[in-house]
């Protein structure tokens, strides 16, 4: 279980990874973001959620710093008690939303992942 980001030849990191990074640079390694903490850039609490999604659903965009390089991620919060600038750590969850309840083919992707817990 990892929160896998990708580092590219130019040193940049993205979550998720892509076959090519900025400037066409190729992936060189993966990094497990779940071993790092991050800072909340912004957040929202969604009150109208699609089928199979918890309601309300508090989400945040957070920024990790890995070896001086910034990489952002989106995720569910473990609480709605959150402020911009809070420090968080990723916490593994077996199922972030119910596979098959929405339109996406259940087998087309994974459904476990990480929620963000304020430290």
């Amino acid at each position, binding site marked *: 279980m990892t929160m896998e980001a990708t580092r590219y030849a130019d040193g940049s990191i*993205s*979550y*998720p990874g892509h076959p090519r990074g900025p400037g066409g640079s190729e992936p060189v390694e993966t990094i497990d973001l779940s071993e790092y903490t991050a800072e909340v*850039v*912004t*957040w*929202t*609490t*969604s*009150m*109208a*959620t*699609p*089928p*199979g*999604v*918890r309601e309300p*659903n508090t*989400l*945040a*965009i957070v920024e990790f710093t890995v070896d001086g390089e910034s990489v*952002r*991620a*989106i*995720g*569910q919060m473990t609480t709605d008690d959150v402020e*911009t600038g809070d420090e968080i750590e990723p916490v593994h969850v077996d199922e*972030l*939303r119910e596979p098959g309840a*929405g*339109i*996406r083919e259940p087998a*087309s*992707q*994974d*459904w476990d*992942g990480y929620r963000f817990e304020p430290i």
Partner: protein
Amino acid sequence: MERVAVIGASMTQFGQREDEWILDLLAEAGLECLEDAGVDATDVEHLYVSNMASGEFEGQTGVMNALAQDIDAVPAYTQRIDQTSSSGGAGIYAAWQSVASGASEMTLLVGGEKMTHKTTGESTDVIASLTHPVEYKTGVTLPSFAGLTARHYLERFDAPRESLAKVAVKNHENGVDNPHAQFRKEIDEETALESPIVADPLRLYDFCPITDGSAALMLCPESVAQEYTDDYALITGIDGATDTHVVHEREDPTVMGGVVESGKGAYEMSGLGPDDIDVAELHDMFTILEFLQMEGLGFAEQGEAWKLVAEGYTETDGELPINTSGGLKSKGHPLGASGVAQGVEIYEQLVGEAGPRQVEAETGLCCNVGGFGNCVITTIMEAAR
């Protein structure tokens, strides 16, 4: 290359169209546009249908071929254009390309979507299916992206929450004069600010509704246009661009790169700049998007659009009227139709057919946004001279 003209336009009633499905809506707008332009269906060489998700919403695919038969345009070449919420703008681009390239001398573009038979949750999920798997599994929706971005904008630029409500109030006021709008009802700032939270800090009146509807435009070379009418508009600038699929990967959450890039391209082609635009239709699926597009298109400096809205700069009697149609906010947002309907409003403003919404305009711009700025089309039209 000969200039591309718009010689006709139509728009169905937007709203909840009970017992009318995607093929009914497309045919209604298509036939009305043929009549408005005075063009015989058998003279249509290319037929484009802007539609995001008729298969997902209704289980009806092949809508472009069905429409060709329903309006008696067979054997016209036809193609369905899907670019999510910017399918309409992408349809304008495809239709423009078909004429500009010389491939077609008469192109009909019809955009439409049937959505209201689904629950809000189901419709939201169809739209959210455009997201990357790491986004989708979090349950993020397009309204959630708007909430995330709005909070960042308000905190970073010290903009008051009321500034977003002013966009909703303005566009609802404009919608009153649009007979095809889903909502023809003014609201006050207090109503917007006290409406239920949808994606904190955004509330119900910061969002467009779910809508059924269709809209159409007729395009042809300018020399052909002159055989039909003296009152036509010209598409003098058009461009499309993308931004990242994964929204949080953008360097600056308040900059929509697709808006900036497509705007630059459209300005360059037309030889015009932001100061030359007399009226604009922006993709206000969420109130915050009106600020981001004003800034991305150069109508305002970054972080300053909210001040112009507060000053009345974008009202119908202001320096740059924005969303005279009522915008997606009040007019409604049938996904594939919205970008076409923006073009219908600008066309009607330029040929003097906007009725009580009429403003003085020789040039107009529309910006149609797909996803959360993932794909964007900017179109500039000018009145024929």
